[in-house]
């Protein structure tokens, strides 16, 4: 595979309610910051790929509102209606197909403008599932319950994920929630959908993220630290919750397998230096460890107890604080990519994992990891 490099990334500070900015202005903020950071103008950008969601933005063809902001007047722009990781890989494909030399990829989401539970309920089909009032909370509760029941993982082990990620977020100036939390606080928080409590879930955030991709020779000219795509895999699990494997994230496992194969990775814990994953609730991250092959099925709780995924562990996961600290839903995956890029560039400041050379980013679509995209990056 030819080389596609991430030249640079920009992010907004993630917040609960950016009421004074339209989402178009949020997008312009990151795009303009990126132009300035890289010393480029709109003329240096070949085309634009965006990621957004009509239901969240409250507009059909929601990307119409951001054409001015991304600079796509008289240019090509296309929108992936899904998580930012899918927009990233589409952007990379446009370079690998030799159609464009540089691609701007942007993802945004303002959760503050609409009731997220209702929006989530619309993911479910109107024939069978929607009437049940299912949303991300209740589905997560079902999944967590089945997983914990099968493997004996405990609520305390799950709470460790929240403690770890919220602590890591203190080092991330962009993070929405920047306050440490204790296991007891998590365990004593309000029960939302047994066995998951309020603090097992992420906040809702507003924010945007942008990055510039370039083909090899241009990326090398534009930056001393291009971040190369090494592996990619994508896989979609069944739609109906009743058809899904609710205790093992099969879709993620298969996506990761493809990505590892492409990147020539046989032992992820040894060969990966850092990971950024889209953990939608505490237990989810433990299931993700297993699906990514960091440990055997059901051992996710033990894995975190052994400290393996802490900042000083063998495979730090979510130095940025993860989704549990910042959750502008559609943008989550692209934020993971941006954070891995910062790690591999050595520019992650206080949240830097020393000598990070290979990193993994995971983004998901839909409910409980139905759609999965795994990306592996390398600094060399």
């Amino acid at each position, binding site marked *: *595979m*030819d080389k596609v490099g991430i030249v640079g990334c920009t992010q907004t500070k993630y917040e609960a309610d950016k009421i004074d900015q339209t989402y*178009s202005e949020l997008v312009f903020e990151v795009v303009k910051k990126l132009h300035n950071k890289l010393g480029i103008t709109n003329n240096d950008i070949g*085309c634009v790929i965006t990621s957004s*969601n*009509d*239901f969240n933005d*409250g*507009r*059909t*063809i*929601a*990307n*119409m*509102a*951001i*054409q*001015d*902001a991304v600079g*796509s*007047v*008289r240019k*090509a*722009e*296309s*929108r*992936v*209606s*899904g998580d930012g990781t*899918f927009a990233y*890989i*589409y952007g*990379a*494909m*446009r*370079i*690998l*197909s*030799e*159609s464009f030399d540089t691609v701007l990829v942007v993802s945004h989401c303002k959760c503050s403008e609409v009731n997220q539970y209702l*929006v*989530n309920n*619309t*993911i479910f*089909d*109107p*024939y069978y599932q929607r009437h049940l009032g299912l949303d991300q909370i209740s589905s997560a509760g079902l999944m967590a319950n089945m997983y914990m029941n099968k493997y004996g993982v405990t609520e305390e082990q799950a709470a460790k994920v929240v403690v770890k990620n919220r602590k890591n977020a203190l080092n991330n100036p962009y993070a929405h929630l920047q306050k440490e939390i204790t296991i007891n606080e998590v365990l004593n928080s309000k029960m939302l959908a047994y066995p998951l409590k309020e603090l097992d879930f992420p906040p809702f955030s507003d924010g945007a993220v942008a990055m510039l991709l370039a083909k090899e020779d241009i990326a090398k000219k534009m930056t001393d630290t291009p971040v190369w795509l090494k592996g*990619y895999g*994508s*896989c*979609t*699990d*069944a*739609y109906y919750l009743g058809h899904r494997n609710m205790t093992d994230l099969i*879709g993620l496992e*298969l996506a990761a397998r493809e990505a590892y194969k492409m990147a020539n990775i046989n032992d992820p814990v040894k060969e990966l230096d850092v990971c950024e994953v889209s953990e939608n609730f505490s237990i989810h991250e433990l299931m993700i460890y297993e699906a990514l092959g960091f440990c055997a099925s059901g051992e996710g709780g033990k894995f975190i107890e052994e400290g393996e995924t802490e900042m000083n562990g063998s495979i730090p996961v979510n130095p940025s604080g993860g989704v549990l600290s910042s959750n502008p839903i559609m943008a989550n995956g692209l934020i993971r990519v941006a954070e891995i890029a910062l790690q591999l560039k050595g520019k992650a400041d206080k949240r830097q994992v020393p000598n990070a050379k290979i990193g993994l980013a995971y983004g998901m*679509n*839909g409910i409980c990891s*139905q*759609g999965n995209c795994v990306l592996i990056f390398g600094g060399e």
Partner: protein
Amino acid sequence: MSKHDVAVVGIGQTKFRSKRRDVNIPEMVYEAVKMALDDAQLEPQEIDAIIIGNMDHFEGINYSELFCGIEGAPGYLKPVVKVATGGTTGSSLAISGYHNVASGIYNKVLVVGWEKLNEGGATTGIITAFDPVWERPSLAGALGPLALMAGMYSAKYGITPEQAAKVTVKNRSNAANNPFAHLQMPNITIDYVMSSQMISYPLRLHDVCPQSEGACALIYANEEETKKITDNPAWFHAVETAHYYTFGTDDKMYDLPTAAIASKKAYKKAGIKNPVKDLDVAEIYEPTSWSELSWTEALGFCKPGEGGKLLDEGITLMSGEFPVNPSGGVLSTNPIGATAMVRVAEAAIQVMGRGEKRQVPDVEKALAMGFGGSLWAEILLLGKEPLR
């Protein structure tokens, strides 16, 4: 021209109707998908990835690709992603499929566009595409701006309602040769169009496209796989997109500058100097009869202002030098998420010589166009041989 050559090797369409009461969404999608798989003689498992889309908001199902990509297409345990860009959804899907294969990431992909328009409200939905503060209060869906464009175009160049009506007559009688088309009117007359109700001056009811339900599926393969699948593919020569200002009204609208920009880029890439001479047929996206006249100018088929003359002289008729919309076009069939993809499917059908009663003789190269959003345009060029 690109890393890998990409060809259309399988095509599926549903018979488009105003209401498909007999099927739910995944069942409708499956009809087109099955037809495409059978056409390419491929098993569902042989597809590497699926890109599927509709007018995101319309049927009220969020992440619809995770639903019908699994339940109506072979997406289980495969990559499934949605590209949704409004009216251009079908062509954006087609272009996304192209990059998926041209990049070498996948060898065989399935792209599907669908719409079950009556399960939402089209005009109401389209109004929400626009700014809630500045545009929605007065906007009348897609028809309002299209009516303004028609009026301005008419005033600028003296194009008459009769000339516009000729487009509907051409397209809906062409549609009688297309077994998939929604409105098939072999005996339609200019009088019929011009006596229909004025719905937004100067647009009459029959100057305007219908609302259809249906799905369209295409299977793409790279050069190696194509050899194994068929000896009659349709190769992509160029795919280009051009977008415009967020506020579609920022600039004069009627001459669709984006179609001019995208088509010029596509022609250059594919070595087309004079589209009417170097191409053999075009499937363009005409939401109204007036649009077709105006778009033929933007696409360089004739000089500005001469769109009416082009049809008056018979050049774009089935019997003419450069037929436009042998399938019946959007005026005959409009399932929004699929409409632009149907243009690509029909262009591919022409190149493959499979158009039967609607086949234009000796087609080597064809043009397909998508239109939507705030004056967005996409152009795809296909040919019998890979581009060299």
